[in-house]
């Protein structure tokens, strides 16, 4: 038996899904978190008459194996059965496969949600309604006559609170005893029918504005909204960097105290030198270990992920998770909608890009929520080219810190300028349309600690299981290639670009090679090269741009298709060479002053944006 969880976006389908199956589906407070379906199994124990306490799924007092396995599918949210974006199409394709529809309805938004419900009732499939976010109706002064609603719709209705799991047991019982006979309904005037239902089952109580509602109004205030958002974003990055640095310091101490003795022991075991010593431990002296420069699999490999990257990933996802669950991301999308039009997008595209700051893979996957091919192409290309993931950023922070603030700002501005310039260019050249923003803004909800931790746990687990094999394997691979002399050969081959254009030593080729697999390891490989300031900026920016990691590339292929990915890659190569040249030449002109360089680059980007904006306006007025 297959149960489909169907409902509007952001009504808590994923939370109900997690409660039913124990499979952790990512939840947040904005529409479009689930972009493809997740399936899980609900195991039900048929009540054993001999056991008094056995009515739940996990009965501890008896272990009667009379269980039934039910497949549950978490379907992306839809407003109607008439798909517009990719995520909605996924949902509509799934519909015929279900045996039962569990229609998850946001109880605080009954009227709008019933539109989909009534469409579902027109199918010849049993429907059960989970009236979710039931706890919220109490705060909001909404009361709903559940029995009457059930009677008017002719289907069972259960009240649930997905986040806490309240009512889920009752829902399971209804699924087990679903109505076998179904007579599809036909509504002549759907909205009239909805109106009748809502007026007879729902009553609203007037109450005062809550603190969260006031906060809601301030965050999208006509004048204050944007400055507040900018201040929040800057403050959050400060928090991430400061906390990240603090945690890295803590990790360094832990490594020195507990890990160094182990490595030194291993070093003695390996005889203090030789092939394996070189590959596994790298360049370590007898008493002190420079974990960042040693380049051994077990020294730099382990330290880089646990000591340098993990702290930043932890704090970043804690902050992002809080913003997501609170519901701030869609508000950022609304506030920066106008600005995003300058690069041919609308506000929603900011959400994939913010996710990409953590990891490009979920970022690129989130483009499914965008309506047109043009929007998907521009968002994916800009994300893959200009947005470094947190793992990469963490290494960049630690690597560039010794070069001074000027250099860090120069790198940041180069990437932001590239975003603006490339975006303006894509806006003028990519064919197709960009839709006007139409988006529901969810109410703020205070994030629950348990849910926050669960989402954080999933993300950290994904990071650790993804990163370790690739980073350790990648360093192993580079070490072996270096020993075999393959790196020297490749270095000579790539010399015209790497040394000729970018002005980097030819050994940097290993960075570009490993960057195909992992971006954090690739930046770390610049460390032993003892680069000067200009080389550092060129090296780091080109490493961010030239190729997304393999995992992102695969997702790009899946989301954009072969042709558009090829186009995106072509742009990547051109942009890498242009940016490398720009950094080197501009630095030459400004006599290696990072501050002057930053100024020139920023002015250039603003000029390009203004000119492109004027061109685009001309174009659109001509076409009218």
């Amino acid at each position, binding site marked *: 038996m297959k149960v489909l969880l169907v409902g509007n976006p952001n009504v808590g389908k994923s939370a109900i899904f997690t409660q039913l199956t124990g499979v952790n589906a990512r939840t947040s407070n904005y529409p479009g978190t689930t972009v493809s379906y997740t399936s899980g199994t609900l195991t039900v124990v048929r009540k054993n008459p001999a056991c008094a306490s056995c009515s739940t799924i996990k009965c501890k007092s008896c272990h009667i194996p009379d269980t039934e396995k039910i497949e549950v599918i978490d379907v992306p949210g839809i407003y109607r059965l008439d798909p517009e974006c990719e995520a909605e199409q996924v949902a509509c394709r799934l519909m015929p496969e279900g045996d039962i529809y569990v229609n998850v309805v946001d109880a605080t938004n009954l009227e*709008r949600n019933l539109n989909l419900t009534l469409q579902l009732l027109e199918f010849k499939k049993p429907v059960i309604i989970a009236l979710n976010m039931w706890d919220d109706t109490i705060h909001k002064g909404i009361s709903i006559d559940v029995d009457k609603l059930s009677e008017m719709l002719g289907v069972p209705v259960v009240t649930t609170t997905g986040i806490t799991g309240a009512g889920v047991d009752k829902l399971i019982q209804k699924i087990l005893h679903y109505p076998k006979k179904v007579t599809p309904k036909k509504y002549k005037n759907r909205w009239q029918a909805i109106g009748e239902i809502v007026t007879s089952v729902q009553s609203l109580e007037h109450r005062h504005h809550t603190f969260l509602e006031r906060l809601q109004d301030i965050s*999208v205030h006509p004048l204050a909204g944007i400055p507040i958002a900018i201040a929040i974003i800057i403050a959050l990055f400060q928090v991430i960097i400061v906390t990240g640095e603090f945690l890295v310091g803590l990790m360094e101490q832990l490594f020195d105290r507990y890990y160094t003795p182990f490595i030194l022991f291993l070093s003695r075991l390996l005889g203090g030198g030789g092939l394996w010593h070189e590959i596994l431990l790298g360049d370590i002296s007898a008493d002190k270990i420079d974990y960042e420069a040693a380049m051994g699999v077990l020294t730099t490999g382990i330290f880089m992920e646990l000591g340098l990257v993990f702290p930043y990933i932890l704090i970043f996802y804690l902050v992002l998770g809080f913003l997501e669950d609170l519901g701030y991301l869609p508000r950022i999308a609304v*506030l920066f*909608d106008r600005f995003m039009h300058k690069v041919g997008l609308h506000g929603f595209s900011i959400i994939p890009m913010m996710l990409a700051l953590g990891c490009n893979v979920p970022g690129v996957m989130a483009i499914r929520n965008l309506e047109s091919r043009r929007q998907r192409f521009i968002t994916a290309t800009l994300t893959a080219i200009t947005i470094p993931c947190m793992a990469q950023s963490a290494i960049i922070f630690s690597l560039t810190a010794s070069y001074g603030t000027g250099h860090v700002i120069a790198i940041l501005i180069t990437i932001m300028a590239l975003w603006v310039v490339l975006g303006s260019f894509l806006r003028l050249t990519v064919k197709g349309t960009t839709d*006007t923003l*139409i988006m*529901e803004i969810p109410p703020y909800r205070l994030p629950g600690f348990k849910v926050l931790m669960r989402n954080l746990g999933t993300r950290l687990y994904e990071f650790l299981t993804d990163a370790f094999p690739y980073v350790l394997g990648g360093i192993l691979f580079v070490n072996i290639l270096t020993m075999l002399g393959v790196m020297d050969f490749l270095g000579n081959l790539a010399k015209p670009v790497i040394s000729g254009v970018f002005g980097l030593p030819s050994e940097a080729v290993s960075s570009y090679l490993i960057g195909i697999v992992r971006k954090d390891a690739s930046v770390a490989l610049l460390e032993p090269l003892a680069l000067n300031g200009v080389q550092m900026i060129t090296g780091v920016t080109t490493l961010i741009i030239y190729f997304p990691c393999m995992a992102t590339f695969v997702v790009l292929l899946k989301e954009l298709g072969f042709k558009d990915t090829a186009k995106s890659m072509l742009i990547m190569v051109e942009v890498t060479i242009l940016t490398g040249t720009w950094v080197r030449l501009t630095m030459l002109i400004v006599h290696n002053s990072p501050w002057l360089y930053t100024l020139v680059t920023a002015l250039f980007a603003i000029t390009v944006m203004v000119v492109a904006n004027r061109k685009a306006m001309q174009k659109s007025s001509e076409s009218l």
Partner: protein
Amino acid sequence: MTLREMKIGDRGIIRIINGGRGVCSKLESLGLREGVQIVKKSAVMGGGPIIVEAGTTQIALGCEIANKIIVGHP
């Protein structure tokens, strides 16, 4: 009066939506259709989106669309 011209904080009823079928059906699925009462909550500066409240839902609309929605007094 169009939704864009409406004052922030005012209440109104949607009279006409001058959009294509696609836009109308998308708006309808969010609960915005002719005859529905709305409150204009905000309009982001510099020609940004307009935020309206219909029932208990808040919806952001790009100003091109807000220009196509004609609102009357309740």
